[in-house]
């Protein structure tokens, strides 16, 4: 089915779902092929921080086949992963969320900004090495834009 110009490791997950493991250089090619095969619904992009590497997990659904799920996993050590926004629109906000929370930089994303946290937040909260003991304060500057600092400032 899938043209084997790249190497995929196929395994079965704990929940019985089919998992493809792929290195990130060939991620876009595999995703393009899967899209052509009918996986037109990108359910979510999540990521797991294993301290030495970050695993990015894609859940794709096929609308013609009762929305059956296929899982694609890739991993990165320098936080760079190619963006799949060209294939699915929903990747836009998902990738922004992962950038926001995990600090993954999706190369080729049209508008990679923080989505849930204010712009300028220090650190990525879902990383395992995120320091939760430090309180960050969000204040508003003269132009009405948010900025973040460890200093409470006037607003607090």
């Amino acid at each position, binding site marked *: 089915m899938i043209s084997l110009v790249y190497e995929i490791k196929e395994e079965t*997950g*704990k*929940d019985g*779902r089919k998992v493809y493991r792929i290195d990130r250089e060939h991620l876009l090619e595999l995703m393009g092929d899967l899209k052509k095969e009918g996986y*037109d*619904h*990108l*359910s*979510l992009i*999540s*990521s*797991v*921080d294993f301290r030495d590497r970050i695993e990015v*997990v894609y*859940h794709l659904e096929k*609308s013609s086949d*009762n*929305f*059956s*799920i296929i*899982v694609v996993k890739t991993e990165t050590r320098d936080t760079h992963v190619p963006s799949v926004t060209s294939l*699915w*629109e*929903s990747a*836009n*906000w*998902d990738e922004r*969320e992962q950038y926001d*929370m995990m600090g993954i930089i999706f190369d080729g994303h049209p508008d990679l900004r*923080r*989505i*849930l*946290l*204010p712009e300028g937040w220090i650190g990525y*909260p*879902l990383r395992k090495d*995120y320091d*939760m003991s430090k309180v960050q304060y969000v204040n508003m500057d003269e132009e009405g834009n948010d900025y973040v600092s460890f200093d409470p400032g006037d607003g607090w």
Partner: protein
Amino acid sequence: MESDLTHKYIELNMGPQHPSTHGVLRLKLTLDGETVKKVEPVIGYLHRNAEKICELDFYCDALIYFDRMDYVGAMNMEVGYLEAAEKLLNIEPPERVKWIRVIMAELNRIASHLVWAGAFGLDLGMLTPFFYVFEEREKVLNLFTEICGSRQETNYMSIGGVYQDFNDKIIYRIKEFLDEFPKKLEEIYNLFVKNDVFISRTKNIGILEPEVALSYGVTGPMLRASGVPYDVRKDEPYLVYDKVNFTVPISRKKDVLARFIVRFEEMRQSVKIVKQALEKLPDGPYFNPKARKSLMIRLRGEGDVFARTESTKGEFGVYIVGDGSVKPYRVHVRSPAFKNLSVLPYLSRDVLIADMVAISGSIDLVFGEVDR
């Protein structure tokens, strides 16, 4: 906007404190007179990072943060989390628990859709149906109070079971509610659709093509109103949804009115499901002894699991990674309202402000869930 000197666009910040944004949505509008040229949703004002908090607690403790995500449909959130957690921890709930969960989830679906209908009416400037709707919703919440002692954030289910068993009185009360609810539902439905102004405000507004909807990751009643019959309860049945008889309503009209009608039809189907579930409710224990209270904090899980359920807003997915300890290593939530909101900029090109409010109302936003 592009540098168009012949026009003067107005930049308008709608929200985060605005009557029609259902909480803390902020919309950056670019207006040409009354016409919306561009919308940029800004979210995150209710962000609590529940995913990180879940990593700090035991598996059983994470449940209450899910209650607080979609606080209007808390039972569905609990079902969603437990589907994933129980798979990861290899705990199978007893048969009776599955049926009880179905009953609670469907009752909550009714309550949630009712709240949506009331809020949607307010968006369009109808004040009166709001009270009729909340009267019915209050009856569901009274049932919840009787069953689990809490109205909204119920914290009723637990890993491998539920907090309290059903007794005959509760079953009688639910049946009583189900007998009179359909009549009231039709009354509320007619309050809306028999009104010509309501029809003219919703018909052919906010048309969402199915291909676009799939590409944006839209799920739930919004996707079904676009003609794609995707319902996790049918396509990948969890709990005992494969043993009850119900249909998945879809509409091919794709507009705001279609979303309204689909949600009301879903309520009718929910009534049907609860009726069947009450008849089929088997006897048996209401928790799995492997996950009784003293053992609950010692549950360990390894591997990764993705479970999806049909919450009131759409496909609610929970992705849990366990590392063999008593705490989850990573929890990620696929929030349907988050994805559904992402289609708003697409839907609101070149519509009037009034229509944009109708469209954003039809999405069914609950900000606890969008921001998590």
